[in-house]
C-alpha cells in the first residue's frame, strides 16, 4: 500500500499530465490497448471498395442484396483473420514473435537515461567525487525497471495475441459457414 506522501505525490503528478489534447493524439491513444482489432466488426466504410466488389460478385450469382451484404462482410472478416494467422506463422518461423523492434525502439528512447547510467559508472570508478552518486543510482534502477517492464509487456502481448487470434479465426469461420448454410 502507498504511503500518504506517495499518494499525494501521485495526485500532484497526475495533474501535470492531461493526456492527449489533439483529435489525432486521442485517436492514437485510443488504440494503445489494441492487440489485434479482430473483435471489432468489419467497418463498411473502411472496407467499402472491397466490400462493394465482393457484394457485386455475389449479386451476380443470384444472391439477394441482404444475403450478399451479410456474406461479403463474413468473407472479409474471415480473410482478415487468415491474414493475421499468416503473419503470425511467418513471425513464428522466423523466431520473431516478440516485437524486437518495439523493444529496440524503447531502448533508443532510454538513451538519455543510459548516459546518466554511464556517468554513474564513471563516478563509481572515481569515488573521489561522490556528490551525484545517489540520484544516479536511482536513475539506473529506474532505467532497468522500465526496460524490464517493457520487455515483459512485449512478451505477454505476443503470448496473448497468438491464442486469441486463433479463437477469433474460429469464430469468423463458423460465422461464414453458418451464413452460407442459412441460404
Amino acid at each position: 500500500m502507498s504511503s500518504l506522501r506517495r499518494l499525494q505525490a501521485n495526485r500532484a503528478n497526475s495533474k501535470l499530465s492531461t493526456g492527449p489534447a489533439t483529435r489525432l493524439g486521442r485517436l492514437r491513444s485510443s488504440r494503445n490497448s489494441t492487440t489485434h482489432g479482430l473483435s471489432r466488426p468489419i467497418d463498411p466504410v473502411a472496407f467499402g471498395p472491397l466490400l462493394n466488389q465482393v457484394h457485386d460478385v455475389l449479386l451476380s450469382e443470384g444472391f439477394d442484396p441482404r444475403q450478399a451484404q451479410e456474406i461479403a462482410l463474413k468473407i472479409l472478416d474471415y480473410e482478415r483473420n487468415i491474414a493475421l494467422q499468416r503473419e503470425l506463422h511467418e513471425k513464428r518461423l522466423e523466431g520473431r514473435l516478440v516485437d524486437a523492434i518495439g523493444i529496440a525502439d524503447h531502448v533508443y528512447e532510454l538513451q538519455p537515461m543510459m548516459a546518466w547510467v554511464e556517468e554513474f559508472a564513471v563516478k563509481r570508478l572515481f569515488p573521489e567525487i561522490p556528490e551525484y552518486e545517489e540520484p544516479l543510482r536511482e536513475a539506473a534502477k529506474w532505467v532497468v525497471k522500465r526496460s524490464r517492464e517493457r520487455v515483459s509487456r512485449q512478451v505477454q502481448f505476443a503470448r496473448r495475441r497468438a491464442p486469441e487470434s486463433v479463437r477469433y479465426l474460429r469464430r469468423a469461420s463458423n460465422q461464414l459457414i453458418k451464413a452460407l448454410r442459412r441460404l
Partner: protein
Amino acid sequence: MNHGIDQDAHGLSGTDREPPSITDILGSKAVLPGESIDEYKKARRLVIKELVAKSPMQLYLAEKMLDGLWWMRRYEEQKRFVIADAMVDFMVGRLSGKVTDEKRPELMQLVLNDALSPGLADILKKKDLTIEFVRDRSMAVKQEQLLELDRLIAMKAKELEGLQRSYEHVTHRKLYSERLALSVEMMRRDVKAIEVKTRKARATDHELA
C-alpha cells in the same frame, strides 16, 4: 480426391481456365515465402476440377478448402521442424566438443532428412544414446508446442468439414429453393382443397337444414 485427373499443371486448354474468384478481388496470398506457388496452383486446379466449381462462390469455397489442407500440411511441417530443432539442441548440449554450434545447420538438415551420418551415430552410441531416445526426449521437451500445433490442425480439419458442407449447400441452393417452392405450392393446393371440402360440407348442411 482424385489426383490422377490433371497430369500437366501448365498444359490447360481454354475451357479449363477458371474465371476470376473472390480471392483475386481480395488479393489474399495463399503461400508463404519458401513455399511453391506452382504446387499450390496445381493443387488449386485439381480441387476446382474435382469439385466442378464454376460460380465465384464455389471457387472461393474450393480455394478455402485447399487453403485449409495447405495450412494442415504447414502445421505438420512445423511440428517436424520443432522436433528436429529440439533434437539438435539436445545433441549440441550433450555432445559439446564433438558437435559444435557451427555444425548446427548441417546437423539440422541431417535430422530433418532423417539421415544421420555413421560418424554421428557412433558418437551417439559412445554416449549411450540412440536417435530414438533423442527424439523422445525432444518431443517431451516440446510437448506443449506440439499439442498447440495439433490443436490447430484439429481446428483446420473442423473448418474444412464446415466449408465442405457449405459448398454442398451453395451448389444445391437452387435445387433446394425449387424444392421448397414446390412443397409450398403443394401445401397451398392442399389448403385450397380443404377449403373447398369445408365449403361443400357447409353448403350441404344448409340445404339439409
